[in-house]
């Protein structure tokens, strides 16, 4: 294998990894900051991918409208989920109910969209850096878009009133309540916003992967891996570790073969959990509630 191929693999890994980071950041926000463990997370991403495909490809709705519809829908889904089944603090109950929601989503997708794998079949325009090294245009756009979304989310949390309210509620609910913040509404809002990120991530993933109803499981384990590598609750870190996982995933596929990709990656996940459950980069117990 030449050095050029190697660089291509790494570049490809970095670009996909950025999107992995975005996908995982919503999970890490939910689990780490909001203390809501959402196991229907992967299938929500999958649903976003399917909807993107059908809105744009099958029903020929202009992209802008499609995105607006998707955003509205996912904001509502997030809001409803938080109001009905996730308004408790018991992790066990949350895990079980969201797993149930996952099954509902998967089976509804099978009923309405059938289990047939779907693909956007975008003709990828390559940008040549040198004669042999190139990157895909959509991938490049997605990568920078993912970074932009994360940065703007960070700004939202730090600069706007709503964002600061979210941080206040996350840090000390009781005090925030005394200060006149309706903490329940704020939690609803935060959870719904995290669903917007899922919608964005779904659109991006749809341009890169082919989707089938169980794609969510794969995406979820990848998010777990990314989150745990960065430490749950660490959003900036999850973008970085997403890139690392992306590179790793690309390397495993080319060096060992595609059939080893999932077992090796998932095995690695269990190993990291056992050795450094607080994340590879977190020094000791500086974990969770950091946004």
């Amino acid at each position, binding site marked *: 294998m030449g050095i050029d191929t190697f660089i291509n693999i790494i570049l490809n890994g970095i670009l996909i990894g950025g999107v992995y980071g975005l996908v995982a950041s919503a999970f890490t926000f939910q689990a780490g900051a909001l203390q809501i463990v959402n196991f229907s997370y992967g299938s929500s991403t999958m649903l976003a991918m399917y909807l993107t495909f059908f809105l744009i490809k099958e029903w020929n709705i202009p992209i802008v409208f499609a995105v607006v519809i998707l955003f509205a829908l996912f904001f509502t889904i997030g809001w409803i989920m938080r109001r009905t089944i996730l308004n408790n603090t018991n992790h066990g109950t949350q895990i079980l*109910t969201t797993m149930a929601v996952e099954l509902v989503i998967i089976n509804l997708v099978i009923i309405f969209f059938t289990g047939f794998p779907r693909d956007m079949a975008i003709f990828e325009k390559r940008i040549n850096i040198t004669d042999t090294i190139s990157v895909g245009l959509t991938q490049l756009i997605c990568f920078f878009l993912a970074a932009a979304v994360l940065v703007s989310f960070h700004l939202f949390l730090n600069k706007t009133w709503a964002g600061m309210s979210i941080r206040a509620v996350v840090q000390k609910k009781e005090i925030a309540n005394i200060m006149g913040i309706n903490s329940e509404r704020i939690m609803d809002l935060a959870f719904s916003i995290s669903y917007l990120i899922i919608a964005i991530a779904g659109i991006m993933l749809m341009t890169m992967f082919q989707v089938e109803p169980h794609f969510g499981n794969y995406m979820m384990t990848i998010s777990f891996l990314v989150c745990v590598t960065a430490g749950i609750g660490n959003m900036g870190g999850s973008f970085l570790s997403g890139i690392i996982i992306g590179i790793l995933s690309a390397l495993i596929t080319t060096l060992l073969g595609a059939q080893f990709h999932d077992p090796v990656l998932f095995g690695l996940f269990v190993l990291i*959990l056992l050795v450094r459950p607080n994340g590879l980069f977190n020094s000791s117990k500086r974990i969770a509630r950091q946004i």
Partner: protein
Amino acid sequence: MRSDNLLRRERLLHPLTAVSLALVILAAFVPIFGDRLMMNIAIMAMIYIILGHSWNLLTGLAGMFSITHALFFGLGVYGMSISVAKFHLPIIAGLLVGLLINIVMSAIVGMIGSKLSGLYFVMAQVGLSQTIYTLSIQLFPLTGGVTGLSMPREYLMDKSTLYWIALILAILTTLAFAFIRKSRMGTMFVALKENPDLSLSLGSNVGKWRIMATVMSASMASLAGSFYALFMMSNNPEVFSMVISLKIIIVVIVGGIGSVWGPIVGSSLVVMDELIRGIMPTTMAPFSVIIYALVLIIMAIRHPEGLISIGRSIGLKLEGKSMKKVSISK
């Protein structure tokens, strides 16, 4: 007042014993009067009773939240079908192979469980389960990939034989669960679930008991899996799926977590599900899963703080309800 309570409990036990006797007698009639469909349904219910006891042991008693319990079940299935279909070993060897794989896997899970807790433990289980699931597809020469292996015809057993085996296994695991609950092991399990720190300071080796709980539970699930392989005469990666894990959990939660009766009461759900699926066309299968999921969601909405806490809100339902009635009438 207290003796009154005790008396009521004594009386309450009697109907339960009567019910269980009636159940066993009723079960004995199935192969005589029932047709193939009935028998299949009954066997599926038995399998879920065994799996329910297995999950109940690990989560209901020892308090380790097992989210991918189908992992142990599936390893039992693969142990049996690979050794029988690939290596033409006798059935008993298949059983032992399944058991052995499961003991190794559950020791790993138990070790993780004694090191990690809460969300991390659950995530590790999902990771392990996904690893095994993908391996079961990728290791095509051994496992038969997506389509799975089918077992040679000479292993095919008569439906009523299968039925009796299932019934005996279900009764045995029920007795085993009841025995374990009352034994040293059961006391230690509940103690470490309720208060790990105090258990430790009272000299209980919490880590060891956690591993023990996982191994015991996995062995039970492995039995069910090996039997399932003989029942279906094949395997496929779907035995590792989330649907089965969730069904096991729902069966126990509906029946009452931590109690011997939980899985038995809850298995009525499996009977209903299989009945509906037996009648409806196969394209309706997704709906049955959705119904399961909705049952769980509704239960969660009704009991927001603790779907998996023993003896409090929904656990030990039979006892809990009667107590409540008494207090209201007063």
